């Protein structure tokens, strides 16, 4: 059946692999090769979402090697994506005829047809009607090849979802290709909009948490109801979900455990814990081990008292998830080299949020100029938060009383 195999690619190109067909359907269409090869022919496919079109379509044929090996090994490598089988015709071709399709084809006609040869002359009209668009690749490493053929992907791009990041996760990309916009995605998008996420923020949210499409809508609603029951307002929940997109993918028990952990560990009032979590919702989605370790570090290694730690954390929640090494290095420099006692560090925990090299450079410049005065009791006092947070020009002008060029020259002597 060699020539049959050769005919198949051209025929398939015309239908753009746009639906699932059984072998008998394919076979029956063959004799009318010239006139019926119109795209848009399989308008609303009723599809099973299991098999890739190509695999089932070709099972009955001993096809040529061109189509053989590549797409059937779906399990092998990460890169393979099956051609989507929820495709609608990608291009508006209203002028095309959609011939009536006889769905009751049988396999009996298979061996009776006269073989068609590509060298057989055909008329001009038939030639014009053969549409030979390049075929959709059966597997690809990028979603660029499929974006024009899939309504789902098109609508996601127009929403603002970054497909170039999602295609790096092959499971996610396969999932998105198989989903139908009307059935699955729309409901979840409407749910998110109800929650309070604006249209322009949906894109960034979905780029991070594409797995939300595989969640059950009921589960999502239960989780939101749980958060509401814990006295988080709707606006707060929207903000939390925006900042930590994976929040709604956590089950109610998990969320409960985490909230309970923070309440016990930090021993803050319920309202303060709630404010903390709203400010930094990734506390609920991240791992708890670094938080436990950081609490121990602040208490035992750095020597802060419990109420001091509570104060610092309510001001700078990021300290709970900061890297232990960086925190200890910063503290070591600020306490031992700059000789700043604990109670002043507690007043300005912003030093733990800034880069160490910035603190070092500015302190050394002030020390060189003789203006490194961090004791609030004495004149010319420089507060720690201003030291780290202001930009260079303001720092040089107000605190160091020197020009930016002097600061740069000084940096080149370090």
């Amino acid at each position, binding site marked *: 059946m060699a020539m049959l195999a050769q005919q198949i690619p051209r025929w398939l190109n015309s239908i753009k692999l746009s639906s699932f067909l059984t072998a008998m359907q394919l076979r029956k269409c063959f004799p009318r090769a010239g006139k019926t090869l*119109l795209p848009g022919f399989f308008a609303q496919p009723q599809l099973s979402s299991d098999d890739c079109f190509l695999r089932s379509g070709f099972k009955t044929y001993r096809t040529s090697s061109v189509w053989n090996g590549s797409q059937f090994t779906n399990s092998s490598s990460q890169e393979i994506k099956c051609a989507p089988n929820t495709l609608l015709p990608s*291009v508006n*071709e209203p*002028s*095309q*005829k959609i011939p009536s399709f006889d769905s009751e084809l049988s396999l009996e006609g298979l061996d009776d047809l006269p073989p068609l040869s590509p060298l057989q002359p055909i008329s001009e*009209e038939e030639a*014009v*009607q053969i*549409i030979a*668009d390049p075929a959709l690749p059966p597997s690809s490493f990028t*979603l*660029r090849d499929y*974006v*024009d053929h899939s309504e789902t*992907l*098109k609508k996601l*791009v127009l929403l*603002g*979802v*970054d*497909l*170039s*990041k999602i295609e790096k996760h092959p499971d996610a990309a396969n999932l998105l290709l198989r989903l139908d916009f009307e059935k699955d995605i729309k409901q979840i998008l409407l749910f998110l909009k109800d929650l309070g996420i604006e249209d322009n923020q949906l*894109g960034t949210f979905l780029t991070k948490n594409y797995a939300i499409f595989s969640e059950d809508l009921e589960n999502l609603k239960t989780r939101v109801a749980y958060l509401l029951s814990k006295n988080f307002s709707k606006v707060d929940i929207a903000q939390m979900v925006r900042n930590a997109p994976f929040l709604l993918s956590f089950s109610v028990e998990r969320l409960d455990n985490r909230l309970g952990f923070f309440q016990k560990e930090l021993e803050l009032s319920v309202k303060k814990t709630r404010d903390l979590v709203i400010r930094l919702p990734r506390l609920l989605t991240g791992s708890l081990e670094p938080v436990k370790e950081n609490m121990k570090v602040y208490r035992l290694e750095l020597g802060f008292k419990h109420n001091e730690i509570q104060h610092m954390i309510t001001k700078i929640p990021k300290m709970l998830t900061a890297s232990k090494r960086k925190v200890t290095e910063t503290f070591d420099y600020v306490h031992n080299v700059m000789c700043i006692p604990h109670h002043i560090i507690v007043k300005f925990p912003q030093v733990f949020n800034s880069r160490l*090299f910035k603190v*070092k*450079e500015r302190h050394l410049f002030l020390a*060189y100029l003789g203006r490194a005065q961090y004791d609030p009791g004495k004149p010319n006092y420089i507060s720690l938060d201003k030291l780290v947070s202001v930009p*260079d020009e303001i720092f040089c002008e107000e605190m160091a009383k020197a020009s930016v060029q002097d600061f*740069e*020259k*000084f*940096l*080149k*002597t*370090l």
Partner: protein
Amino acid sequence: MGLDGLARLHGLFAAYKPPGLKWKHLRDTVELQLLKGLNAGKRPASEHRVRFLLGPVEGSEEKELTLTATSVPTLIDHPLVRGPAFTSLKIGMGHRLDAQASGVLVLGVGRGRRLLTDMYNAHLTKDYTVHGLLGKATDDFCEDGRLVEKTTYDHVTREKLERILSLIQGSHQKALVMYSNVDLQTQEAYEMAVSGVLRPMNKSPMLVTGIRCLQFAPPEFLLEVQCMHETQKQLRRLVHEIGLELKSTAVCTQVRRTRDGFFTLDDALLRTQWDLPSIQDAIQSAAPRVAAELENNLRPGLGTQPFSPGWPWDSEGPSSALGLESHAGH
């Protein structure tokens, strides 16, 4: 931006490496910043593509179909589908500096990496300022290493130090001649040696071509060293040996490179200047000088400039590379 930004990004430039930063982190940071700058520009993206579609022939009354070229909208070139234009840049590194040292570090981007090899083959000297501290010795010759010995240093005077420095310079001068593989009896070699061009043009151990003391305030002292084929650890070992020669001990508190070949402190870009426009300007301004110097140095013979730019032997006073009065390191 984008492609024409990339076009101006071929060549050599110098960055100032602060102490405490590994050279690899510096290279990665510079690469990230350059990529950020290059990807920030708008990319021309076609929003349509041409396809040949079947449509009715105009003016005919029958239902005849023919192919016509139509422009259909497409999302293939949409920025969210294509991704960023630049994902990596090739940046090469000149002579490395270890984590505790600081100073001028030469980097090459794109076609400038070839010039890095040329710079290496030119075997130019480098200038360092080295701060030493008398009175203790450690295992890795740095101030924060494991303490090995503590000594007194009251007997050390500036004269003794300078005598030792000239001894060092003399012995290294002999080594210089030896490793240069020239017969000093010839006229050419003699003239090269006199004008200061003589140096080994292949691998050799560390050679100090010039060393002098800029400041001496016991226990601290400041040396300026001009050397080639060195590592910073060998410079610290040098300080340690100077301490031993002075019948005391010394550790090195700071090693700072002030010149690498023809890149000086003035050309070096600070951390705040590691972004696309400043690096492009730095490459452009350094390009003619780089070309001239490399051409000079790769051409052998007497026509070459002295490889130690601007170190007149008999002028007193601190070199211009110091800038401000150097402060006590810690």
